[in-house]
């Protein structure tokens, strides 16, 4: 990684620990700033083919059969300037019985007129496992539109977990759209944590199709909104085969003039399938609040702690 690349990571506000990860020779990484590929590294068993094309960046990632990566693959997608568009297309293939974790740092610290689009196609073969963490920071201005879209197919006995976190700074406009299809005996868990302020606009649509027998699915959303922010969370789970179990769990806390909506959609077409949902929207739970105040916290301190805990 060059000095210039480091300088760019600094400008994005990436902390020192994570910057060190991008220097580690044993850790695979990819850094894309704006429309340019700044740095990449692979490790044995992992192919990363990234190229700039058509006003965006196309990335193909393939993990060979049976390869299990001990350390996560780190990616960094960001925009240094206050205005720029970034378009990323990613195709990921985890071959049979392979496993890897991916950590994506998505950083837009000065965003005033920024658009970030991510379109991912993910194939997880039989017995393979993929963990994906996406951590966002959009700066204090709210001038960003982020559109993460993913289509995931999980093979028999495979596993996919994703964890999207955007809890510091403004959100801007966020439109998450995930579709996951789970085969026999596979497991999928989608977790989203977002804290909206100002006029932030949060729209989340996540859909799990439990297509194969005994597949398991969980959609978990933890959203807090304050000021004039809006959040609309749609969690869709379809139980289409024998023995499948699905659950949609949405919790949203609102303050001030913020508005939150939860739309759980569950559909079952097999008599031996079971899909459940729970949604809770409202201000902070009174009993929690009083419990903390009985320990000497002011109402403001107590609310902050409850919201922070929910988003952890």
């Amino acid at each position, binding site marked *: 990684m060059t000095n210039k690349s480091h300088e760019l990571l600094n400008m994005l506000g990436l902390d020192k620990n994570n910057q060190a990860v991008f220097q580690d020779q044993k850790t695979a990484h990819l850094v894309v700033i704006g429309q340019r590929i700044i740095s990449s590294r692979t490790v044995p068993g992992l192919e990363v083919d990234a190229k700039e094309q058509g006003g965006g960046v196309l990335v193909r990632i393939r993990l060979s059969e049976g390869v299990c990566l001990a350390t996560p693959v780190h990616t960094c997608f960001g925009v240094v300037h206050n205005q720029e568009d970034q378009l990323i297309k990613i195709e990921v293939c985890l071959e049979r019985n392979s496993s890897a974790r991916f950590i994506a740092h998505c950083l837009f610290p000065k965003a005033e007129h920024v658009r970030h689009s991510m379109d991912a196609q993910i194939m997880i073969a039989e017995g393979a496992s993929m963990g994906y963490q996406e951590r966002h920071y959009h700066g204090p201005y709210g001038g960003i539109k982020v559109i993460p879209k993913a289509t995931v197919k999980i093979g028999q006995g495979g596993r996919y977990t994703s964890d999207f976190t955007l809890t510091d700074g403004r959100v801007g406009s966020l439109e998450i759209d995930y579709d996951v299809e789970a085969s026999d005996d596979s497991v999928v868990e989608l977790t989203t944590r977002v804290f909206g302020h100002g006029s932030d606009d949060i729209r989340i649509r996540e859909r799990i199709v439990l297509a194969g027998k005994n597949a398991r699915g969980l959609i978990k959303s933890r959203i807090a909104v304050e000021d004039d922010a809006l959040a609309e969370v749609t969690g869709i789970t379809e139980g289409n085969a024998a023995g499948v179990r699905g659950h949609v769990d949405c919790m949203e806390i609102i303050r001030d003039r913020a508005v939150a909506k939860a739309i759980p959609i569950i559909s079952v077409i097999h008599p031996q399938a079971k899909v459940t949902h729970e949604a809770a929207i409202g201000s902070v739970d009174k009993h929690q609040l*009083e419990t903390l105040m*009985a320990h000497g*916290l002011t109402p403001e301190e107590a609310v902050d702690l409850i919201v922070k805990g929910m988003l952890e």
Partner: protein
Amino acid sequence: MNLLELSDIRFTASGRTILTGLTLTIKAGEIHALLGTNGTGKSTLANIIMGCEGYYPESGGIYFDAILLNSMKMYERARLGICLAWQEPARFEGLRVHEYLTLGAATEPPEVFLRLVGLNPSAYLDRMLDRFLSGGERKRIELASVLAVRPRLAILDEPDSGIDMLSTDDIIQVLDHLRSTGSAVLLITHREEIAAAADRASRLCGGRIIATGNPRQISSSFKTRKCISCDGMVRDDK
């Protein structure tokens, strides 16, 4: 010297009188058991002392160390040294046991207080206070949190409910610890063997305290569940 004085408290909810003419004192460092059948207003009284929302008396005074609490907020009362362990403690996502036990100005590390309530610190410090803890585990942690803030007055609302019989000794140990640190305790319980650990006891019936005295005598009269003065009926003095 009286630490807490409740004077002629009257409280109604949804048009129903719950407490009327209630007077009670708790001395500094005293463990005071409060007995009463279900629905007599024991938990209501605990909430009134703590200042929970919706639990403000219509009349009467709540004095703590001679300071009138009636218009004080809950956290202000907590900062004076009052702490309440609820009968059904709240669950929190994302809040770990060690964080919960250090919310107040804890004088000792949280491990100490977990051991005092019969929990192994290494198994619990990093756990979340969420729904995956059993009711009994959560109650023990609630008691540990009260110990951790070293209150001047601890209100324990049925600390024994939801905890297995064998751990009565653990609760007695908690009371002994509070006594050793000079804390006064208002102990709400139905169990004679736990009430017996108190210095004094009062019986709540018909919205008021009908007797105060030796815990064994009060427990004995409570066991009959009969009240010769009001037969459990709230006689509204208003």
